[in-house]
């Protein structure tokens, strides 16, 4: 009897293999939370069960996008009251879409230790949904990066401005370096990457690409580990608030720099147009969730979701006649 029960449970787990998407991007104000809410809307309208988790511990605002003014629960209850994560899921007026809101009432920034964090990540992976979308804060704090690396699909959002793109590169670099360190730690080479990096002048290493080349040349094992484990490490780039075609093209440049200067696989999944009317009415939309924001934004988002799911990207010759 016991065996069949556990078997049934295993089957259940297998059926609901949750896919985690994380949305980050370094700079604040690029529209990470907005893009996340739109992607979630799109997935939910396809009939997928979606749970959004606000992992922006210091500046949660995801609930505002869904018209929740006073959070009855928050992710902090998981830490200080040991409430199971399933009980913190709030239904939204949108079908198939629920959220775990973050803490907005706290007067001091949250301090979460490593054990708490890994417990949270473990529980997020066991949530009962098709997709779990993580909303991350700006900056490159270790909490943000760890939460980002938890995901199956790593999505970054930037606006076509130099400062945002610079921060985006810093973010991707930090994420990639953290990933490298984790990878080496798994293979008993804990301080390898760090040591080489600290002595980088000696080895004539300028950046992370040189570091990778150096490590690959050093030994066959490292080469195998790197090419094996990093091949599926892909960053999906979304440009937000794009005003003209030149800015659309900037996405290809950003992707190229990621590939050639940082050494990560990158895909340019799409862009969202700047909609003047929409930004004027943003406050209104936030109070009425599920409203079709703007048809151009909606179609942009649909393309992005399709691209992320299928692994396709923007075609560079689609902008030829400009």
């Amino acid at each position, binding site marked *: 009897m016991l065996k069949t029960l556990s078997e049934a449970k295993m089957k259940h787990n297998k059926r609901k293999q949750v896919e985690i998407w994380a949305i980050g991007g370094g700079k604040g104000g690029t529209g990470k939370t907005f893009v996340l809410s739109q992607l979630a809307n799109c997935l939910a309208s396809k009939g997928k069960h979606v749970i959004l988790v606000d992992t922006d511990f210091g500046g949660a605002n995801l609930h505002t996008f869904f018209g929740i003014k006073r959070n009855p629960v928050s992710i902090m209850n998981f830490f200080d009251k040991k409430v199971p994560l399933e009980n913190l899921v709030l239904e939204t007026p949108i079908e198939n879409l629920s959220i775990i809101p973050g803490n907005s009432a706290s007067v001091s920034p949250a301090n979460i230790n490593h054990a708490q964090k890994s417990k949270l990540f473990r529980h997020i992976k066991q949530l009962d949904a098709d997709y779990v979308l993580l909303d991350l804060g700006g900056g490159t704090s270790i909490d943000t990066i760890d939460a980002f690396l938890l995901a199956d699909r790593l999505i970054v959002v930037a606006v076509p401005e*130099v400062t945002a*793109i*610079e921060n985006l*590169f810093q973010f991707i670099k930090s994420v990639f370096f953290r990933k490298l360190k984790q990878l080496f730690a798994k293979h008993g080479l804990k301080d390898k990457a760090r040591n080489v990096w600290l002595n980088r002048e000696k080895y*004539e290493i*300028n*950046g*992370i*690409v*040189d570091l990778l080349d150096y490590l690959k040349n050093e030994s066959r094992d490292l080469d195998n580990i790197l090419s094996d484990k990093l091949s599926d490490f892909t960053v999906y780039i979304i440009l937000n608030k794009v005003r003209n075609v030149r800015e659309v*093209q*900037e996405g*290809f*440049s*950003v*992707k*190229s*720099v990621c*590939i*050639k*200067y*940082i050494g990560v696989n990158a895909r340019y999944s799409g862009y969202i147009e700047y909609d003047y009317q929409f930004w004027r009415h943003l406050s209104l939309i936030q109070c009425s969730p599920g409203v079709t924001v703007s048809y151009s934004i909606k179609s942009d988002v649909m393309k992005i979701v399709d691209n992320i799911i299928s692994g396709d990207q923007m*075609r*560079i*010759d689609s*902008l*030829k006649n400009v």
Partner: protein
Amino acid sequence: MIMDEENLNKYYETLELKPEASFSEIKSAYYHLKKFYSSQSPVLSVMMAEISETRSEQLLTEIEEAYFKLKEYYSTKKTEKQRVTRDRVMKKNIPEFEVFSGNALKLTREVLGVRLEEISLATGIPVNHLKNIEMERFDLLPPGGYIRIYVTKYAEYLSLDSKRVTTDYMKTVNKKGPRHDLNRF
């Protein structure tokens, strides 16, 4: 020249494309990357410190090399494809015609199993023009000089004697087609 697979994949990688990429994609990617990496774009300047100067110069050479090698590869692939079509033509029994009319062209094409879209892709002639040539609807076609070029290309694609086909066809055009009377002004 046959290029080994490994090199080919490397070239696609340099241009950040999948091996399924079309030639127009390759071209666009090349022009974009070349322009971007030789410019003083702010997107690039924020990453200046990341790689050495020699490496960034090397990048440009790599992009250049990848494009020209792929261009070569695509053109050999194209001639290869044309050769295959010609072989296909040789193997089939093409009916003999006294005079090449639109109908004769159509019959030959159908015997060879070639679709109009295929010809249109290879020659750049719109499908409706090809259709009108076969049906001899001269009033819907552009003036005679154009028809002559279209028919030549059409015949060349089917590996027919293009000179003979064109002369035959133009005779019909002159007989039945609308007069473009230049003296009326």
